[in-house]
């Protein structure tokens, strides 16, 4: 009897994991031809209320400048989750960067949003350079930016 319970429990745990499974997406950020320093770009997951849920990727590795990305800093500055594994270099004007981001599958088509905010030293800060709803259609597409970003492209792995 005990054995059966154990197996049952195990099956339940496995199921729980399958439910929160996530998918990797290759994501390319193509910058406009602006002048100046490399841009800091932060990719975050927003919940349906528009609140930060999770940091997905940070382009730019000098923490001294993070507070310039104001909105995100209000979230991350308090939480200070470990982002070492999802940090890359800044992206200069005209260049592009490819990163791999991980999005839980249960956030797709649920009103969640993905936000790309960008800032350049001594220049503007765009809190929603690119922002779109996470739909199964959008995560395969190309979305134009409003600030330093020309466009972003994503494809699921």
């Amino acid at each position, binding site marked *: 009897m005990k054995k059966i319970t154990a197996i049952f429990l195990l099956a339940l745990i496995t199921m729980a994991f399958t439910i929160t499974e996530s998918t990797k997406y*290759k994501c390319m950020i193509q910058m406009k031809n602006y002048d100046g320093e490399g841009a800091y770009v932060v990719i975050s997951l927003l919940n349906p209320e528009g609140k930060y849920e999770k940091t997905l990727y940070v382009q730019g590795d000098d923490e001294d400048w993070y507070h310039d990305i104001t909105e995100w800093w209000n979230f991350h500055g308090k939480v200070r989750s470990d982002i070492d594994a999802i940090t*890359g270099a800044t992206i200069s004007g005209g260049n592009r960067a*490819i990163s791999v981001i991980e999005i839980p599958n249960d956030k797709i088509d649920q009103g969640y949003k993905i936000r790309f905010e960008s800032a350049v030293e001594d220049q503007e800060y765009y809190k929603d350079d690119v922002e779109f709803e996470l739909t199964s259609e959008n995560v395969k597409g190309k979305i134009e930016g409003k600030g330093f970003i020309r466009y972003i492209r994503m*494809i699921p792995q």
Partner: protein
Amino acid sequence: MTISIWRYSHLTLAISSFIFICLAAITGIILAFEPISNQLKPYAIRNTNQITIAETLGSLKKEYKEVVTVKVDQNNFVTASVIKKDGKSETFYVNPTTGKKIHSIQTKASIYKFATNLHRSLFLKSTGRFLVGFFSFLLFLITVTGSILIIKRQGGIIQFFTKVVNEDFKQFYHVILGRYFLIPIVLITLTGVYLSLEKFSLLPKTKVKHQYDFVSKTDKKLAIKNFPVFKQTKLSDLKSIEFPFSEDEEDYFFVKLHNKELLVHQYSGEIASNQQLSWVKILSEWSLFLHTGRGSIFWSIVLLLSCFAILFFIYSGFAITLDRKKKSKLPKNKFKKDIAEFIILVGSESGSTFGFAKSLFEALLQENKTVYVDHLNNYTIYKNAKQLIILTATYGEGEAPTNASKFLQLLDLVQQNNNIKYSVVGLGSYAYPHFCQFAIDIDNKLQELNNFSPILSLAKINNQNFGDFKNWAIQWSEQTQIPLELKQQEFKPKKQYNFKVLDKTELNNDDSFLIRLQPTKKMKFQSGDLLSITPKKDNIERLYSIGKIENDILLSIKKHDVGICSNLLYNLTTEENLSARIQQNKSFHFPKKSKEVILIANGTGIAPFLGMLENKTKTHVFLGLRTQHSLEMYKPYLNKINYKVAFSQEGEKKYVQDCIQEEQKLVASVLKNGDAIMICGSVAMMNGVLNNLEKIVASELKTPLQKFKNNGQIKTDCY
């Protein structure tokens, strides 16, 4: 153009920027270690010029599920960003032949981050960047004005690298290092300026734009490792490759090389677009390399040394300026120029002459004379003048010092009303070929003018010897019946050390004696250096040539009846201490590289040579003494070697210069082989020897003697 403008700009620029330059140099020193330590890391790939991109991409493709980017940085670290077979993405240093990970990415050490930030923007962001760029440019101007000063000092561009006269440690190395680091510093400053211009988008905009016709579907499919362009390109030419984002045909390989950017079709391997980088970009690359030394240990070390040199320039430059300022003060006049009967005019480049002028000025005041002192360039009509005294140094190749540059013209223009008696005193150093030339020019010019008459012939003073100046004053007093009591201006006395008297001989028939002293502290010196003794009684410094015997100092002294210093030394007893100071005298050191050396001395000039006899160099010694008896006290030091002596008061009554005349062949071969002749003793003997040498050289080698003097083959230390 006068030298003063350049010196003035050199100094003004330095004063206005030294704090920033100091900061930049110190952080620069720290930053120079970054590329050096990077080069020593194990992930630097040495043979990137032998590996093709095709090889690297092929092995990476095999090793990982997907490759995103490959980069080769300035340190020759190859970085790959990949998605591994388990779906996780990772970026790391990679072995370009095996495709295996070597090490995870190392972030810049925080000390370098801090130093970089301070170095390029002083933590002031854009303002700081601008300031640093601006001061970099100022440093460039300082370097240019400095070079002009060296050219002026050495007497022409061609002489830029000729021997510098060593008068003072700071000045000497300011010039020497200035020459060595001219090119690195010019490069550092110009690239620094260029890099900040770039940051401020002040350079022409040259973004690379790729234009290409979209090639419709191609059937041709090649494996990446077979792409011709990848096979032809070496890793050393590569900056980065971005892999096609998706499998769509419009996604290309984006290849950045050092001189161009390529779009390569992801299936056919054909080049869809090829854009050369602009010169602006290429210059930026070079500027970065030259400014940071990245990727080159050698250049990093050059940069490191340059930073140290810059710090030394700041220190020595200000030290020189302060020295000059201290000395350059003319005393305050008590009488108007048209009232004074005695006019003292001064020409000086470095300011040491002003001290002499001040002594004279005060001595005349003490005699209740009306005296007026001024710079030579301020020469004008002096209504009451009866006596004119000119004290002047000479600059460079016999030119006027800055504050005397217009004097010779002024002499023609200004018409004095009364007849004036004059005396010219030139100050200089035998070390310069144009000893007191400007004083000579003034003296000649005054002789031509009608209302000037000399009361003394031109006096020349070597190395600011105050004793010589006093001698001139005595002569002047005799002529004018005005007693002068000259007091040497109190300079801050240099630090004195104690020397213990070990031994002292009795006076010989020539009133000479030997004294052996032992430094009470460990000191570095060698034969030919000078012992500086400044008796408290008159505060006048005397210099004696040192013979170094078993780490002791041997001096040979001639006692004069009224000589303050020689009597001071003579009255010392064994074990007593003498306070003195050792002064380096590089120009009279025994030449280590010579194979054969001729030493010529007379009288007490033998002392330094006694310390030079213990060496393997073939040494020929010629001595000039009065009598056989004179030789006795030197004999204990001469027993191991052969030497020739000329006795001037006994036997053949020969002088040492006569011995030289008989040694034509030896002299000629020594000079011809680049070896040295050293002369120490009286000036009369030196002139006699030089005369004979001149004749020998003219007949045997057909060369003027000056050539050997200039390249240091003939060394003299005479008094």
